[in-house]
């Protein structure tokens, strides 16, 4: 393949991109082929989505607009292979792994500030998102700890030539409002802009029998994201972006006291998150690209809880986290067949919290290397690894090997294997928390021995479930994963993709009761005890029927099981008492798997749009029954009473463009009004209406 002047021009314009993107024969007759979907998450360099050899999908800004929701939760909920779960905020679950194992990036840098492992998706406004790249399967070989289930990378929109001002207002049920302002100007070498978002909601409180069930708290949140890109010189570019987030929350919940009485508690929270990312990009020639990134982020969450009855203080806590990262990345484009990406970084992290016994600091350093290799016209390899050095935990090597075989123009097959890992976080080590009403305690692994022996001396321990030396130092959790996928596009308007996955996770850290205090409440700590496997398959079909109509459907089959439980079942060591009071052995088929994982989930989407500016989008999202917990004493889900019912959401949006610059929209989320107490992130029926204005003018 020869470098045509056109190609050179293109490369110069876009910065050096993987030349592999041009390898695919261009089919100029096909309409969709012209619009290449360029993604960056899979390899840390730009790549055509179709060429990515690992499971990956993209949510476009059109798709986000069609959903019409202001927060990331509702956008991710509609994606195949993603389940939205609740617990200390709204979290994401991928390939059967929870929020702790999914890294969420904004423009390639991780968001911090997790509560008990959950990064609350409701913190993220979707107003100026260009696209969301979702990478499934472990990506620790590029991203290190946390990226065990995958990576969600949110790419924000930057200005195009001239000036633009986009305003939008959206009003929804539960007195929810969302305002978004997006202004940008691009002149010559300078591209600057700012996005300001205000989100407010009265919150949703569902009364279910006699228990108060909160879906989400009353919230007022401001997000401000300024950015500037400055092409200082032909070879030098400076890119600075920031994110400022400020949120106030109030909610009501009940706690059952050890005195058998339930209390209503009002919680008010105040959350701040500031990030700053300067990035210096040096492109000495077409073959080299060097990036220096200096990421700094600060997160703080303050919470005060008071009794509703008399306003007395129930609990107060402050959590602050600081994370810094200096990273140098070098991409070397040897020729159209080889690209070598390497990098190294240093990341100190500091945490201070009322609920932690001590201030915590981590220092981590890492280096990674990756080779992108077009071996033949049909066969492509992407492989590499990352070595992480951590101040508190064992060092870790995470490998990755992925291959793509383009059998024909229509069929390609992807196979990959990779190692994932997750270092225990500060809470696993340092937590020192006792619930003032319910009375239970959770101690981190470093805190537990000391606190339990203190309590023992004071005569506060009634029973020890483990001898103290069994609560040992924690090791990082780690996994091996295999993915086998395919893409089949018989005609350009029709595309089928699929992927089989298998993850084997060891040394999983679990909260385990380690003792009981004299009040009859458990004392928990963390231990590397579990081994888990998750496996399944994901299928997607996209069909652009006509200029006006398009259809999409997706389905995921998921099995997530505890390997020790499987072994015990095999050995006939797990039992239950049946309704007749007779104890019986559990069979393999009785075991529903890990809690909170639905075996079946999927979606069907229909979109209609026409030349006169009408756009209609109708989606149905299904999450099948899932086990929510154990009630019959054997610690596993094995009877129907332990299953939560399925949820079917029907979401709809209609919009109309007026005078090209204006758009009105209206719609409904959860038209069927499906609500159950096991899905606290699904509110009742939500109606919404909104107005958008997009102004563009050439700034000459």
């Amino acid at each position, binding site marked *: 393949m020869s470098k045509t002047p056109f190609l050179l021009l293109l490369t110069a314009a876009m910065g050096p991109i993987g030349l592999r993107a041009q390898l695919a024969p261009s089919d100029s007759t096909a309409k969709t082929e012209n619009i290449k979907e360029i993604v960056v998450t899979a390899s840390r360099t730009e790549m055509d989505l179709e060429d990515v050899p690992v499971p990956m999908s993209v949510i476009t800004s059109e798709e986000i607009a069609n959903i019409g929701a202001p927060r990331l939760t509702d956008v991710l909920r509609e994606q195949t292979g993603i389940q939205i779960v609740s617990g200390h905020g709204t979290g994401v679950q991928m390939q059967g792994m929870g929020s702790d194992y999914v890294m969420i990036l904004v423009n390639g840098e991780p968001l911090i500030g997790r509560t008990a492992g959950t990064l609350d998706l409701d913190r993220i406004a979707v107003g100026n998102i260009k696209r969301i790249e979702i990478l499934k399967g472990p990506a620790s070989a590029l991203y290190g700890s946390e990226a065990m289930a995958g990576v969600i990378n949110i790419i924000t929109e930057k200005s195009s030539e001239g000036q633009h001002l986009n305003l939008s207002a959206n009003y929804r049920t539960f007195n929810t409002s969302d305002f978004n302002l997006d202004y940008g100007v691009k002149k010559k070498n300078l591209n600057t802009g700012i996005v300001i978002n205000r989100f407010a909601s009265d919150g949703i409180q569902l009364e279910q029998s006699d228990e108060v069930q909160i879906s989400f708290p009353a919230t007022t949140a401001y997000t401000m994201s300024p950015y500037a890109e400055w092409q200082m010189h032909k070879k030098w570019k400076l890119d600075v972006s920031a994110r400022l987030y400020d949120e106030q929350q109030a909610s009501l919940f009940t*706690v059952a006291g050890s005195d058998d009485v339930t209390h209503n508690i009002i919680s008010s929270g105040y959350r701040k998150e500031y990030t700053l990312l300067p990035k210096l990009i040096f492109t000495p020639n077409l073959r080299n690209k060097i990036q220096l990134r200096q990421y700094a982020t600060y997160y703080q969450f303050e919470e005060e809880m008071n009794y509703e009855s008399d306003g007395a203080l129930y609990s107060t806590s402050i959590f602050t986290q600081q994370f810094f990262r200096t990273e140098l990345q070098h991409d070397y484009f040897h020729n159209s067949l080889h690209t070598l990406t390497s990098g190294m970084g240093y990341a100190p992290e500091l945490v201070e919290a009322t609920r932690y016994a001590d201030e915590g600091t981590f220092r981590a350093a890492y280096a990674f290397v990756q080779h992108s290799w077009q071996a033949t016209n049909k066969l492509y390899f992407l492989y590499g690894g990352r070595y992480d050095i951590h101040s508190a935990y064992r060092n870790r090597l995470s490998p990755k090997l992925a291959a793509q075989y383009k059998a024909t123009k229509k069929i390609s097959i992807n196979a990959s294997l990779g190692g994932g890992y997750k270092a225990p976080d500060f809470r696993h080590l340092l937590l020192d928390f006792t619930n003032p009403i319910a009375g239970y305690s959770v101690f981190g692994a470093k805190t537990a021995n000391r606190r339990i022996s203190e309590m023992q001396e004071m005569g506060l321990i009634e029973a020890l479930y483990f001898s103290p030396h069994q609560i040992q130092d924690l090791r990082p959790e780690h996994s091996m994963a295999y993915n086998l996928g395919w893409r089949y596009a018989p005609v350009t308007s029709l595309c089928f993709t699929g992927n089989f996955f298998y993850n084997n996770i060891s040394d999983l850290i679990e909260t385990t009761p380690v003792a009981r205090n004299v009040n009859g409440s458990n004392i928990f700590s963390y231990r590397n005890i579990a081994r888990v496997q998750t496996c399944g398959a994901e299928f997607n079909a996209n069909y652009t029927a006509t200029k006006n109509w398009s259809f999409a459907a997706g389905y995921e089959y998921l099995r997530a099981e505890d390997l020790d439980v499987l072994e015990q079942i095999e050995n006939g060591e797990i039992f239950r008492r049946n309704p007749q*009071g007779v104890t019986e052995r559990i069979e393999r088929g009785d075991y529903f798997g890990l809690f909170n994982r639905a075996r079946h989930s999927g979606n069907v989407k229909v979109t209609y749009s026409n030349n006169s500016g009408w756009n209609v989008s109708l989606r149905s999202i299904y999450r099948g029954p899932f086990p929510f917990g154990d009630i019959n*004493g054997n610690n596993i889900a094995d009877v129907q009473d332990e299953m939560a019912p399925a949820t079917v959401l029907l979401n709809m949006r209609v919009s109309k463009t007026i005078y090209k610059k204006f758009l009105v929209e209206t719609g409904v989320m959860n038209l069927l009004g499906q609500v159950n107490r096991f899905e606290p992130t699904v509110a009742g029926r939500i109606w919404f209406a909104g107005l958008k204005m997009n102004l563009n003018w050439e700034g000459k």
Partner: protein
Amino acid sequence: MFNLIFQFTMKRISLFTLLAATIISCSSDDDNNGGNANTPPAKVYTAEDISSVDGKAYYSLRTQSLVAAEDSATTKWDIAFDGTNIYLNGGVSGPGDAAGQVKATLFDEADEAPENGYIKDKVGLPAISAAAGNTWYIYNDGAGTPPHSIIMTPGRVIFVKTADGQYAKIELLSYYKGNPDTGTQAFANLQTRPPSRYHTFRFAVAADGGRKF
């Protein structure tokens, strides 16, 4: 691959064993009791609502009756209950020879007491306790289902040597008065839940000092 074959073989073996066991148990009860063809299978008793509300409850598996607290320093009792603490008449808990262990099996299938593995109560470490590795219940705290409840782990058989060295097996059934169904709304509601610290269990003592039940 070898592993697979091995697993398959094991499955076949266990299937045959099961089949053989069924034939044997169907054919005659005599084989169950060793050489002594005339010994009937050990009788299974159920002790209902053994209360430790007012303090430790001492119980004799041999006479199937409660033993007065005054006799706690004798070998009249075998097992004592005090809430979720279980004590055996041996070691630091009493003058007898009692010792015990917990196995994951079915009470009805446990036709022979293990020969070894019995431990005695130690200071702060009773034999039948989670700390000693002998778990027999789970505790659901305020956030659990049902909240604040002690649920017997199903399929746990406590094998004990009685104070005078006979072998016995015990299946704990309930921690609440009247052995209620713990899956009901009435049980989940703390206002209507029956009182705790009432142990119901079934047990059998092997005859003639043997280990077969």
